């Protein structure tokens, strides 16, 4: 639906099914599927295919996500659109291959070396997996940047009924293409939007692509007056659009004395807990994050101003809660609820915590 026609991957629990479905379905749709020798190679092939004009993706989990960091950085620097689904299991190392976790939130943000912007989306249902995967492709094309789908194992393996949108109802975006003749094409010049038009290899616009700092023509440079504008543009092409990346759902937040901030499978348990709490007369609400990175600073700041208390439940040692606290700066009371035993947070556990906080 998103227009993906190239997949390269390496098997890993709990992401293997994505690869197996691609192996089955892509050839039937005329696309390319290839199993590579490791995750570094997978993302290398994905970036190569994208440079040749194909919308491309890969999927993996913790250990493979670690290996992919090198090429995530390359895709950021060379501005190559691609989508990486990280089906989160508990780490570090081989960790808990079959258990759900949300412990790659910070790796998604800072896993590759060097300053760089990143966009990560977190679906919490089967429908959102569809919706946000399409959006991931759209954003990667729009901003020419790698997009990470952070999906916990519980959501990734979830089965539930959904109504598929008809293809016409889905908006599909394409990367900006050059409109000038090849002689005039300056591949990394800022057209004003921060995102330079991108030509595919073989389309007549010959240019150079590198992971080194480069000038507007793509040639390596160490000149301070070329290095600084590049890194600033890489950040600002996304930051100037922060307003459009405030994707969240809110439930019962208007009069909430406690607002829960959650994402992925935990947001589902939280919603159930909140409904039960409301039945008991507790004024509690939920903000479900769909965009994890860039962190929705403005949205969260407003909640922190209006809600006396905030709870951030996560199945990790506390990763998004650190961001919430950073934005909070002492405005309200931020509590955490962390589970790191390989099982997911349940509605009763969250309800208990809410009751404790309410009294």
């Amino acid at each position, binding site marked *: 639906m998103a227009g993906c026609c*190239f997949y*390269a991957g390496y098997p890993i629990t709990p992401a293997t099914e994505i690869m197996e479905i691609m192996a*089955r379905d892509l*050839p*039937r749709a*005329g696309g*390319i599927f*290839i199993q*590579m*020798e*490791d995750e*570094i*190679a*997978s*993302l*290398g*092939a*994905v*970036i*190569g*295919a*994208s*440079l*040749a*004009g*194909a919308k*491309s993706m890969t999927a993996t989990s913790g250990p493979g996500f670690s290996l992919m960091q*090198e*090429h995530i950085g*390359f895709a950021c620097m060379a501005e190559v659109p691609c989508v990486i689904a990280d089906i989160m299991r508990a780490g570090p190392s081989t960790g808990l291959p079959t258990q759900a976790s949300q412990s790659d939130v910070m790796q998604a943000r800072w896993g590759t070396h060097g300053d760089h912007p990143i966009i990560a989306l977190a679906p919490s249902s089967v429908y959102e997996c569809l919706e946000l995967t399409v959006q991931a492709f759209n954003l990667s094309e729009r901003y020419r940047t790698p997009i990470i789908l952070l999906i916990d194992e519980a959501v990734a393996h979830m089965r539930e009924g959904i109504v598929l949108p008809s293809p016409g109802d889905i908006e599909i975006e394409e990367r900006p293409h050059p409109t000038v003749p090849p002689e005039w094409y300056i591949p990394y010049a800022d057209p004003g939007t921060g995102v330079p038009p991108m030509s*595919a*290899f*073989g*389309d*007549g616009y*010959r*240019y*150079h*692509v*590198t*992971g*080194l700092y480069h000038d507007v*023509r793509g*040639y*390596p440079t160490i000149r301070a007056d070329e290095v600084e504008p590049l890194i600033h543009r890489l950040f600002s092409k996304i930051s100037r659009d922060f307003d459009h990346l405030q994707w969240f759902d809110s439930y019962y937040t208007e009069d909430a004395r406690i607002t829960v901030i959650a994402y992925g499978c935990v947001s589902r348990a939280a919603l159930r807990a909140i409904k039960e709490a409301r039945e008991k007369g507790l004024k509690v609400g939920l903000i479900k994050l769909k965009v994890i990175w860039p962190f929705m600073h403005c949205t969260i700041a407003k909640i922190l101003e209006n809600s006396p208390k905030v709870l951030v439940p996560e199945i990790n040692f506390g990763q998004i809660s650190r961001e919430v606290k950073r934005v909070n700066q002492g405005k309200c009371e931020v509590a955490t609820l962390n589970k790191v035993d390989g099982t997911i947070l349940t509605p009763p556990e969250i309800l208990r915590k809410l009751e404790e906080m309410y009294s």
Partner: protein
Amino acid sequence: MRETTHLVHKYLRSSKRFPHIWCAGCGIGIFMQSLIRVIDQKEYSKDDVVLISGIGCSGRLPVYVDFNTLHTTHGRALTFATGIKLAKPRLKVIAIMGDGDAIAIGGNHFIHAARRNVEIASFVINNQVYGMTGGQCSPTTPDGTITASSPYGNLEPDFNICRLAEAAGATFVGRATVYHTRLLEQLIGKAFEKKGFAMVEVVSQCVTYPGRTFGPDPAVAMMKWQRDNSITVAQASKLSEAERQGKIEIGILVDKERPTYHEEYQKLLRKKPKV
């Protein structure tokens, strides 16, 4: 000379700030010239050629030439090349790697690209050293050699890149030195024509690091060494293992046919698989 001027104007990027980064006397430039010459002979459209490299002195080659060029990560050029070739099979995909690049950090990608048989013409510039990082030993540095990272002599035996490619299934394998440019150009041409994974090892000189032990004029001395130590594949076949020691075996080592990944994939697509 006229021909060279013509090639310079046609293929070197006029928008690129020169000079290039290579040391005077380095063999990489000789290889670049041969590569351009063969591309010109073959009359490939510049729009259809993709030059992909890894990281190292050799990795800097693509930036100077006017094709679709991609300077990737250390050791991983072949993974990007695989994606490009499969996504747009009409492109002429050429990968350029260093010895450390292709065989140390990229060794796994190298053997799998050969096994998979994606149509990529690949070139390993073997200067038996990590040039870019200052002369440390590489997997092709001979046993006992003193380098920046083996001050007491290298303790490891070296890899034979061509035999590795052959064992992994490459359909074309050849070796030349930058002294033997005629042969080198022949092999480049054959690698370009190959329907499948082709690998040419280009024995080259790093004048700045190993070159230090070659006297005051290392470029000439090292190329003379290439001339005097090379034997053809035919000559080598008459020698015993012991006699071949220390010699550079040049020529075509493998030239065979095998279905490419792309051909197999096309067959699959034509079958329109059903679940």
